[in-house]
């Protein structure tokens, strides 16, 4: 009894921290969800189809790309699904990075955590892993929050499509990088991580300048992994 009470108290603390960390990121998701709903209406999808997409796919960048393709008559099943796959390739790296931690969780939880793995939940969860340690409760809490904000703001975008013009121009999108800056500062305590962050910064800019979509995240990851390898070699 005492043990389970201690565990549930611990979980509560973890959940509270998860909510605290997720709020600014949720704020930053809203304009993207609104834009998603708005764009879906513009290309002629129904309210049901757009909200269903957000609820089942739950991937901002991939949905934007798909919605643009829905707007062109030539795009069929193969092209849209393949585009989604390509845009989401970066999640393979994130899934691989979280795998050793996630493996302890039961199957249903692993399924839910995989389904809801986004850039944002990955960044929050791994920043927490660096600060405190991995927690499935933490990951699940931020994932659920981000999920409902994404689906909810998509629905609002659909609902108010005629009243709102460009949610991304409000400046609300700054909430996300601002929130991640704090997590980044907390994560680069040692010299190795600072060098890795610096190399990832340069690689992400180079990638964003030269490659379409979210490839810059993949480029940043690969450059950082190689840098880590070199740093470890030099140490030993």
């Amino acid at each position: 009894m005492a043990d389970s009470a201690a565990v549930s108290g611990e979980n509560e603390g973890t959940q509270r921290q998860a909510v605290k960390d997720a709020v600014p990121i949720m704020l930053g998701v809203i304009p993207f969800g609104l834009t998603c709903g708005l764009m879906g209406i513009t290309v002629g999808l129904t309210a049901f189809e757009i909200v269903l997409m957000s609820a089942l796919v739950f991937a901002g960048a991939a949905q934007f790309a798909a919605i643009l393709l829905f707007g062109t008559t030539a795009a069929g099943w193969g092209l849209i699904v393949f585009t989604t796959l390509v845009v989401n390739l970066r999640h393979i790296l994130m899934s691989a990075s979280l795998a050793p931690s996630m493996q302890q969780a039961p199957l249903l939880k692993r399924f839910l955590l995989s389904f809801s793995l986004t850039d944002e939940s990955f960044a929050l969860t791994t920043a927490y892993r660096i600060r405190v340690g991995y927690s499935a409760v933490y990951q699940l809490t931020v994932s659920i929050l981000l999920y409902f904000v994404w689906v909810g703001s998509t629905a609002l975008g659909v609902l108010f499509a005629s009243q709102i013009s460009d949610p991304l121009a409000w400046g609300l999108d700054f909430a996300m990088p601002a929130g991640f800056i704090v997590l980044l500062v907390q994560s680069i305590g040692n010299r190795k991580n600072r060098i890795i962050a610096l190399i990832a910064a340069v690689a992400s800019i180079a990638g964003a300048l030269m490659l379409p979509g979210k490839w810059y995240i993949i480029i940043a990851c690969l450059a950082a992994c190689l840098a880590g390898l070199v740093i470890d070699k030099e140490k030993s």
Partner: protein
Amino acid sequence: MRWDIISIILGMAAVTLLTRSAGLVWHSFGKNFSRYENFLRPIPIAVLTALVVPSLLMPDGRLHISIYNPYLIAGAFALLLAYKTRNVFITVALGMAMMLSLRYFGL
């Protein structure tokens, strides 16, 4: 109900889940995963950096390093706040205030 659209959405959902579970599935089956674990370790820092840096330096897709880029100025301010306070709420609240006032004053 437009089943052609629904089937596209289901396809999108399937491939997205595929990418998001691929690492876990690989890890569950693979015996030599720990060899890669060390190699993959920098990924969280790289993702965090990639979520911050381009959105500040290239807010509209082009490199924009000048005092007329409100994302960069507010971002530098947020970085300072993050170092001083290590507090997400203070950093985001004051960073947003900075961002909105830069926009309001048309900088």
